[in-house]
């Protein structure tokens, strides 16, 4: 496609020229989105540990400092509370900070600033000090990393009033969701599935969502990634790709599975969720985070509330366990695998009332 070779960036006004489709890894797609956000908004700033010259340990910010300057893209001292606390002051001064914490587990030292300050400042200041902060967090497991490098924080942050939470599942979603999140006036926790950084996929630059979709073309809400009739698999982040694999396997046995990528974990798109399960009448939620008080419970309740009369079986949750995220040797035992998801599907399909 000839458009694919066009230079990206805000120099090309959106909507005036078609930019077409490119094959990109999620790392490249995120990098492209940040580049375009920096070019379009002179108040956007990208910073964190090793985000400058190195381009981030995952290279998501690769080349951005050279292109946009050391004032716009910079390294901070190695202190997450400092990074997020500083973001608050920058937001008060009219900037749009896009900080990175290097790994999910490194967000814990910043929880005080995220929960007590970023999430509440718009409220505390009666709307006079919005917090347009997009916090990028390389998230979830699957890369055989050391301790505190494989955490799933979505339930923690989704529970905090004042925060929004989103997680992309593929390069196309990564590009559009990050561009969208980084132009919102509210704080967004952007959870990047680090195990998917190097997977390539098609990015359609011109169309975040298919034309005529319920979201009106903007990357809000949930998205049906595979239509099916018998059961809805609800997932986000890296689990979406796994659920799509499961759906293909199930199809061999004549089971037609719908895969719903929730995308936004707060706010959850209740309407799309309900529409899917009303159709299939069965649902399984899949996440890497521990079971108890995980987001699967919230999803299951939303489904129950909306679809109680038509549900054929209780909503099943296939999740990580209530254990600290294990060492690499055991992570395949921890993260929901294809077999566990298939067992969950089987339990729901075979459920008998009474």
């Amino acid at each position, binding site marked *: 496609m000839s458009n694919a070779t066009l230079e990206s960036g805000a120099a090309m006004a959106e909507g005036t020229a078609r930019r077409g489709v490119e094959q990109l890894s999620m790392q490249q797609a995120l990098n492209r989105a940040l580049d375009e956000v920096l070019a379009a908004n002179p108040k956007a700033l990208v910073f964190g540990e090793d985000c400058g010259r190195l381009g981030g340990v995952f290279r998501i910010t690769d080349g951005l400092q050279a292109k946009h300057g050391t004032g716009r893209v910079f390294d901070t001292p190695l202190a997450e509370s*400092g990074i997020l606390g500083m973001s608050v002051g920058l937001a008060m001064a009219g*900037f749009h900070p896009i900080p990175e914490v290097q790994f999910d587990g490194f967000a814990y030292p910043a929880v005080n600033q995220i929960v007590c300050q970023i999430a509440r400042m718009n409220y505390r200041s009666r709307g006079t000090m919005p917090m347009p902060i997009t916090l990028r967090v390389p998230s979830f497991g699957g890369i055989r990393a050391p301790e505190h490098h494989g955490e799933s924080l979505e339930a923690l942050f989704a529970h905090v009033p004042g925060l929004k939470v989103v997680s992309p599942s593929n390069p196309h979603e990564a590009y559009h969701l990050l561009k969208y999140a980084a132009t*919102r006036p509210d704080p967004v926790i952007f959870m990047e599935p680090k195990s998917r950084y190097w997977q390539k996929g098609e990015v359609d630059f011109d169309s975040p969502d298919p034309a005529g979709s319920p979201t009106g073309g903007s990357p809000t809400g949930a998205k049906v990634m595979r239509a099916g009739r018998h059961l809805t698999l609800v997932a986000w982040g890296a689990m979406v790709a796994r659920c799509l694999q499961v759906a293909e396997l199930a199809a061999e046995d004549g089971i037609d599975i719908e895969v719903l990528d929730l995308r936004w974990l707060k706010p959850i798109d209740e309407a799309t969720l309900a529409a899917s399960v009303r159709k299939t009448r069965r649902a399984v939620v899949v996440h890497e985070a521990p079971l108890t008080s995980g987001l699967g419970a919230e999803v299951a309740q939303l489904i129950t509330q909306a679809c109680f009369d038509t549900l054929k079986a209780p909503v099943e949750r296939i999740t990580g366990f209530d254990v600290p995220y294990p060492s690499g040797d055991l992570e395949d035992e921890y993260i929901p695998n294809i077999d566990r998801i298939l067992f969950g599907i089987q339990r729901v399909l075979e459920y008998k009332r009474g």
Partner: protein
Amino acid sequence: MDTSPSPLNGNDAGHLSGPHAEPLTAEQLRELYSLMVAVRHLDTSAIAWQRQGLIPGYAPELGQEAAQVGSGYAVDTTRDFVFPTYREMGVARAMGVDMVAYMSTHKATWHGGLYNPIESRLAPIQAVVGGSVLHAVGWAHGQTLDQADGVAMTYFGDGASSQGDIHEAMNFAAVMKAPVVFFVQNNGWAISVPTERQVAGGSVAARAAGYGMPALRIDGNDVVAVAEATRRAFAHARAGNGPVLIEAMTYRRGPHSTSDDPGRYRSLNEERDDAGEDPLERFRKQLLADGIADDAFFAEALAAAKAEEDDIRAGIQALGSRPGTEMFDLVFQETTPALQAQAASWREESEHV
């Protein structure tokens, strides 16, 4: 307690650079006194308001009037920005913030206060100990990026100096040469814990040396010393020389809050010995001795303070609750369907009570 300005490891006041401010004029000295009287009167009145049931609680700053008024007076509200704790009424008053809007936080009307922080140049009232110090660093770095000349001043106490965020803030500010004035009110007590059980080495100012940051340890009960030190610190930071720390040695003469009982951790004799001379009385004597003000002026200042307190009290009494819809409307700039649904349900069900 030695509260004299002390040189600290070569990073003392002598190393502050930037244009020197003119000495305070007689008119400015009288203004400082009037502000201190207004703050003293409002502060002691607020405790009475709490006892009378007008407000549910208050964090008095009795004894810290010189530190608060002197530092707040040095702020240029056309370009600087201040980050308070929950005990900065004197700073707010010296900066000209609407005091009904400020005191509304103590009436439990709205946590951050009802004043507009952007217009007032005062961030919302901060309940997290040390919580806003990093915000000052971010705001100040924004000035650098914008090539603007504003300075951020952030307040915290000897207790807050134990928080990790304080270290991160000072290190970030020094690394980035951010124009920040760290204003420490060392008032001797973090609720019930005295400074010697809180601050290793006994001085917050001494820590600045580790960050390569100049520090001033000043007599926080001398309003003129405070105002002049703060002006020098602002000039230093404004000139692009990076952050400065001021440790104003003072004494919390009252309780931590209207719920506190200092009798459980310090005796009246100890209070008398440690508090030193009342900063307001001390300044009055000095102005009298220097022939800058007379008894008629002092009487006038007190009358003005009483009239002001009457007005603020009336404003507080007249202050109704905020509409409950604000609970929902002010969470986000862009609300969510779930929040709208909760608001609708609250509205419907509260109408049937």
